[in-house]
């Protein structure tokens, strides 16, 4: 099983490198989609079907958003200018980060043997305490419902921010001047 994970991860790394280095913006967005769908397949094989479903759909929606932002501006001209200081700084930082990762992962428990002090209780007593067959739903909406409340507040705030930023000129002016030009529906 671990070999399969490694093959999928190498495929996703190739997709990520293409997404970062390609000049055409549409290709970059679609190559980032390779990573997203690869993550979704990995979730399915890591025995997390809830997250696999959510990841597939969220990936489709985020591709739509990113393609919506991509306009026909002179993308390739921007990409052709190379900022050598930022490149060198980025590579140095990347090297330091990978070194620290390897140093930290030596002390972790090996892959496939998690530390389950809290979760063991959820698995063995979840059905009696909550009555839900899906343990993930029991954790989200019963044991840790505050998390879900916080998540709802965060997504509410982000939508509010997006609306405030996008509606740049105030409601009334859009309705008066741009109604004829753009054709905003009532």
């Amino acid at each position, binding site marked *: 099983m671990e070999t399969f994970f490694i093959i999928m991860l190498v495929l996703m790394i190739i997709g990520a490198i293409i997404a970062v280095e390609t000049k055409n913006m549409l290709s970059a967005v679609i190559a980032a989609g390779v990573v997203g769908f690869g993550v979704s397949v990995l979730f399915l094989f890591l025995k997390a079907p809830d997250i696999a479903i*959510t990841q597939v759909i969220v990936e489709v929606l985020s591709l739509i958003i990113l393609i919506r932002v991509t306009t026909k501006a002179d993308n390739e001209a921007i990409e052709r200018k190379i900022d050598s200081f930022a490149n060198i700084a980025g590579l140095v930082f990347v090297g330091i980060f990978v070194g620290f990762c390897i140093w930290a992962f030596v002390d972790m428990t090996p892959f496939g043997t998690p530390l389950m002090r809290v979760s063991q209780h959820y698995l063995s007593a979840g*059905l009696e305490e909550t*009555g*839900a*067959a899906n343990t993930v739903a029991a954790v989200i909406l019963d044991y840790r*419902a505050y998390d*879900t409340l916080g998540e709802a507040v965060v997504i509410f705030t982000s*939508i509010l921010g997006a609306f405030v930023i*996008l509606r740049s000129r105030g409601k009334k002016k859009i309705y008066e001047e741009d109604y004829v030009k753009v054709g905003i529906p009532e």
Partner: protein
Amino acid sequence: MKQKDIEQIIHDDHTGMSLIVKTVARMMIAVIILFAFYIILYGHLTPGGGFAGGVILAIAYTLMMLAFSRKMALHKFSDFWASFWDNIGMLAFIILGFLGLNSGYFLYNFIWHGKPFHLVSAGIIPLANIAIGVKVGACLYAIFIGLSIYGRLIIKEEE
């Protein structure tokens, strides 16, 4: 919008995408919404739940917006109703939490748990799933309304 205008949008080649996409979308949207409600309602028994079902609900209306036109999608589910259902979902979740204060603490699972592996079981979890699903679906659909209406100005000026 009258019935005649809707039929004109469906059969017109200039608004929205091509005829093949429109035909397939017309058949699929109802099925996608049905699937979303299945995922939300059975969230405590099978994989899924409020988050996944809500996003599927949003994607059904986004498909309508992309395939037909923005006018059609706003006719079926306008921005006022999107914000209304968003607030209703949030309020329902918070009120469920406060009802738990009656017999314990905030967000306490106060309803009788019922028989396991049945649709009516697990106390407040199915109700909270419905609230979260409605909230997430309306919220993500509102994003697309925003990106579509206000983002339109940018592209138009460039041309």
